[in-house]
């Protein structure tokens, strides 16, 4: 057998091993379980899915979609533990509102109402709490939702890090389009709605531990307006929308390739990244494709609708920097490939639990 044939045989074996359900081997939670990569996935499947298993939860999409009294609803929740609480371009408050609004929006739902629960550490300044709440109110108003219920808990000093926020949200599906990572087909186009990595880099630098200064601000924003514009332009040509939060664009593309059984081929040159973000990533040795955004989405649309989707996104203030970054193909299924700016080819894999700082 030639070396190439032997290598292909090994690669097929590795691919089969990757299809197998990962086993949770750890006896304790490690920081890797919160990084949004494979370790997080394994923890969710082995503990939560195992305990709660039901058809609505099982797809593990950003929100569950179900019928109630003749309407189709989307329902989601998210916790926020970002440190620092305040950073250029936003704070934990607007992050918590926008994150939940976005999880509903990318399911195709119109966000209606949110809940907000606070875990506060003894000694936390009321002034900061007012600031966070004001920012949540502004974000809710701008997304056209109301915060209609909530909860407050206080724990002793040292038992929490200032303030954690949990939001949940309900949205209404007003069309019968089914969006999801499993609906992508060969020939579809992959778009991002703007420059990637702004939020993650902003928060990492705002922690002040790296000694790097750069003119970047978080991209936190509600995506419901942008989704509406896109849907109005290409309707059922939209296959899948995801907001590129923890794990970044790379993680979403892998979910798509895996769930739809397609190859996703990305052109590195086409991926919009601000120079300051790119520079910081070069210095830190991280890939912007893995850095979190809080107001950007990945949109996969029918290949024929790519240009009209792009034009629609660019017509909205939050989509001015949108770009077509790649295409779905048939082979090799399940892989995300990058055509590097240098002219080579490599894989974009799922992030393996690197201990990155808390960014959301």
């Amino acid at each position: 057998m030639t070396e190439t044939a032997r290598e292909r045989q090994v690669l097929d074996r590795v691919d089969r091993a990757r299809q197998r359900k990962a086993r949770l081997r750890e006896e304790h939670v490690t920081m890797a379980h919160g990084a949004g990569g494979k370790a997080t996935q394994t923890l969710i499947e082995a503990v939560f899915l195992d305990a709660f298993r039901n058809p609505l939860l099982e797809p593990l999409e950003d929100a569950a979609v179900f019928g109630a009294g003749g309407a189709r609803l989307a329902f989601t929740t998210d916790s926020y533990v970002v440190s620092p609480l305040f950073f250029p371009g936003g704070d934990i408050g607007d992050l918590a509102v926008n994150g939940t609004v976005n999880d509903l929006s990318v399911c195709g739902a119109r966000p209606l109402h949110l809940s907000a629960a606070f875990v506060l550490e003894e000694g936390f300044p009321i002034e900061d709490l007012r600031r966070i709440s004001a920012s949540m109110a502004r974000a809710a108003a701008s997304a056209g939702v109301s915060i209609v219920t909530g909860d407050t808990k206080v724990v002793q000093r040292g038992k929490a890090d200032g303030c954690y926020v949990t939001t949940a949200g309900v949205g209404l599906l007003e069309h019968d389009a089914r969006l999801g990572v499993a609906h992508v087909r060969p020939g579809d186009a992959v778009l991002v709605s703007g420059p990637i990595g702004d939020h993650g880099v902003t928060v990492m630098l705002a922690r002040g531990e790296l000694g790097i200064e750069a003119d970047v601000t978080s991209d936190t924003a509600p995506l419901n307006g942008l989704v509406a514009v896109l849907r109005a332009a290409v309707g059922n040509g939209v296959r899948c929308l995801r907001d590129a939060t923890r794990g970044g664009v790379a993680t979403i593309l892998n979910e798509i390739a895996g769930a739809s059984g397609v190859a996703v081929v990305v052109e590195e040159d086409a991926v919009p990244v601000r120079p300051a973000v790119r520079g910081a990533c070069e210095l830190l040795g991280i890939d912007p494709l893995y850095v979190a955004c809080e107001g950007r989405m990945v949109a996969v649309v029918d290949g024929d609708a790519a240009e009209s989707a792009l034009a629609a996104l660019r017509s909205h203030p939050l989509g001015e920097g949108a770009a077509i970054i790649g295409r779905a193909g048939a082979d090799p299924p399940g892989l995300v490939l990058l055509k590097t700016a240098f002219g080579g080819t490599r894989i974009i894999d799922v992030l393996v639990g690197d201990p990155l700082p808390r960014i959301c």
Partner: protein
Amino acid sequence: MRFVDEYRDADKARALSARIASLCEPGRAYQFMEVCGGHTHTIYKHGLEDYLPETVTMVHGPGCPVCVIPMGRVDDAIRIAEEPDVIMTSFGDMTRVPGGRGSFLDAAARGADIRMVYSPLDALKIARANPDRRVVFMAIGFETTAPSTAMTVLRAAAEDVRNFSVFCNHVRVIPAIQAILDSPGLRLDGFIGPGHVSTVIGCRPYEFIAGEYGKPLVVAGFEPLDILQSVYMLLLQLAEGRSEVENQYARVVPWAGNARALRAIGEVMEPRPSFEWRGLGFIAHSALRIREKYAAYDAERLFAVPGVRVADPKACQCGEVLKGVLKPWECKVFGTACTPETPIGTCMVSSEGACAAYYNFGRFSRQRVREATR
């Protein structure tokens, strides 16, 4: 972006690629080892192999600091970290390296206070901020990082910080290359020399490789065009029948190295008689320890370091991979039992490890992708 894009220019890469192909003798296979894990990372991250003829193979060497740490040293460090008043500090890569009793991440989950730092100076800062705790820096790396460890010890001594120490695992690149040159069954045509190490030690220490062993060596930078040009320079030497040390990375690497950095290392550290390398075994004079004069900053002296020796797992073939005898995918457990999320061997941990780089970036059949995009 300036200072980056010009070293990633696809047009220049295509031109170099053509010149590389024209230098290859028909029917001859070439094997070049890039010693440094940073080069391995660049090769895979930019897909550089697409520019090399099939007869030119890059062999990934032992220059990934995390990959060569033996499991026993990880266990020793965890024992130190588990002392109730200790804060262990470490580079991020190191936190996932498995010892016999799990990794730093596992020890942290069990209750040890282990913190990620970007520089030993950050560890010193933590020591100043926590005067009632003992802060230990897990020092790893080649001559590249040894100067910053040495400078930190000097600063701690100057400021009389008493609660800071270093668990020193610094290793030296020359004895490792020599061990590889002396290992049986290895056929290499030349070396891509480590760029960052050479900013400290300079180019002279490599001269015996070109002289006594007759293998050309080109010290290279870390951008993809640097490496491609270095491959071209190696092939040119072979075509012209030369065997020399050349410096492709002259924009950063001075021929004589960095005298101040070498002085700092020499002041604080001295070679160990012998040190164990993961997969390569004991290599004489291959590592550094803290000198007696700075004993107050030497964690090995301050703590009861058990000096654990843990045999590498039987299935693990890291040694063969580090020596370049096996390609990552030729290891029996590659990608099945040993993956980046549950690594058995260290080569699968750091993004500079040959197995992790191949798994994360190169785990696909180029032939199949060519067929699919045809």
